[in-house]
């Protein structure tokens, strides 16, 4: 046994424990407040009589029971379209970032042109462009791919800034060391700069992915991909139960976001523990 185990606690130890207790208390209070807020929302939609002469909103629970599975069937589509789109977006963002750093005018121009055009127009418009405008030119993309293209192109433009910052975060000294060792600019980029830059870009890319799961709902407007939002509006309109359908969809999106945010924080914690 260690001598420390039996020795009286030092003042530093006591102060530290008090701090831990305060932190724990704060987290408990926050959790309780969350539960209270949830309870209030549940009460509002309970249909029961509330204090101060208010009446809760009556939801059609039978409709919800009958249709939640149908709406849940959109979850895999939402996730699939988000994963495919983020992959495309990462590739485009990396290319755009490299173009932005290129000394070759056509690459630089192509990169800035792409980013400017995409950021200068609404995502909603871009989605309709791929679903509705392209068929007019005889280009008929399957619904899923049109959605992936629209979302990927859009997010790629915004995410190019993340990758550019990642590349910029790798110090000039790294490039000089590689150059002095005889590496070509291409070797320096692929072997030394990019591995460090991508690591830097992982957490913000995670944030973009979480945002994308929700922006994928815009794809529903075209009616070709049967993800969460499309299903919710379809059954909601058919039975004139939009309130109930949208509440179900909102719950699914919310849960997905909470799960992804949790995974994201785990990933970040692991990366920050690594060798920096």
């Amino acid at each position, binding site marked *: 046994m260690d001598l420390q185990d039996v020795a009286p606690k030092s003042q530093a130890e006591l102060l530290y424990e008090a701090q831990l207790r305060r932190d724990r208390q704060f987290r408990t209070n926050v959790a309780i407040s969350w539960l209270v807020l949830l309870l209030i929302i549940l009460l509002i939609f309970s249909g029961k009589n509330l204090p101060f002469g208010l009446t809760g909103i009556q939801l059609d629970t039978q409709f919800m029971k009958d249709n939640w599975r149908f709406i849940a069937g959109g979850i895999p589509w939402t996730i699939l379209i988000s994963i495919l789109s983020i992959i495309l977006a990462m590739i485009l963002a990396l290319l755009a970032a490299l173009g932005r750093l290129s000394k070759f005018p056509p690459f630089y121009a192509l990169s800035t042109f792409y980013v400017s055009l995409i950021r200068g127009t609404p995502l909603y418009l871009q989605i309709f462009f791929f679903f509705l405008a392209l068929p007019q030119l005889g280009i008929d993309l399957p619904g899923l791919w049109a959605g992936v293209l629209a979302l990927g192109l859009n997010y790629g433009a915004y995410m190019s800034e993340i990758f550019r910052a990642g590349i910029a975060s790798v110090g000039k000294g790294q490039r000089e060391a590689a150059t002095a*060792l005889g590496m070509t600019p291409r*070797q320096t980029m692929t072997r030394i700069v990019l591995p460090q830059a991508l690591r830097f870009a992982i957490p913000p890319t995670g944030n973009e992915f979480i945002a994308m799961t929700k922006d994928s709902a815009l794809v529903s407007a075209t009616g070709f991909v049967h993800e969460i939002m499309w299903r919710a509006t379809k059954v909601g309109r058919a039975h004139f139960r939009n309130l109930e359908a949208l509440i179900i969809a909102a719950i699914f999106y919310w849960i997905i976001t909470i799960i992804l945010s949790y995974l994201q924080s785990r990933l970040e914690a692991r990366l920050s523990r690594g060798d920096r």
Partner: protein
Amino acid sequence: MAPLVKVTDLDKYFGRLQVLKRINLDVQPKEVVCIIGRSGSGKSTLLRCLNFLEEPSAGTIEVGGLVVHATDRGDKRRRMVHDVRLKTGMVFQEFNLFPHKSVLENVTEAPIIVKGMNKSKAAEIAEMNLDRVGLLFKKDEFPNRLSGGQKQRVAIARALAMEPQLMLFDEPTSALDPELIGEVLNVMKKLAQEGMTMLVVTHEMGFAREVADRVIVMAEGELIEQETPENIFRAPKDDRTRALIDRYRTGGAE
């Protein structure tokens, strides 16, 4: 013997500012040359022109028989510069180890990528050079687990693994805590004794005095004096040299 390094009429401008003025310099094989001077005197820029981390504005650089004129352009020049870098190892003030690679990978990376050496041969050479700097036992660590002095010794091993004919040191101990300077200087001293040709930009007057064959003094972009250490330290000719040496004598760092 033909000089290993021959610098002729080297000028360097940063924008409109001239930082090197008509530098002429020869370095013989196996010679250890220390370059001293106040910050801003151009000593680091001169060193960085030798392996073209800085582009010379005018003049000629010759390393190991490879001649590059500042006015050269195109593919031939690119190949020449690449070959000069292969003959030259460089050690930086800030170490610049690759943080995403282990100590061993830091040292094997360039031999594998640049020379196309196979992995086991590269590892063999890397281990030999890590042993030379006394850090073979750290080969599986990552750089963030090393002290500053250890990082710099790995950086030296990394440069040596390319088997250069010339080693450039750019203030190799300036970023180190005082108690860690000695271990790096000892490795450099050993290297000098083994006959490596070295150009060392440094503020370590003790090292210059003890190890250098020749000391070069720079001020305002010019090479104002070059002499044996004894002559420089005992009988500096230029007032600026005297001021520089006096400052170090009284100012703490030796």
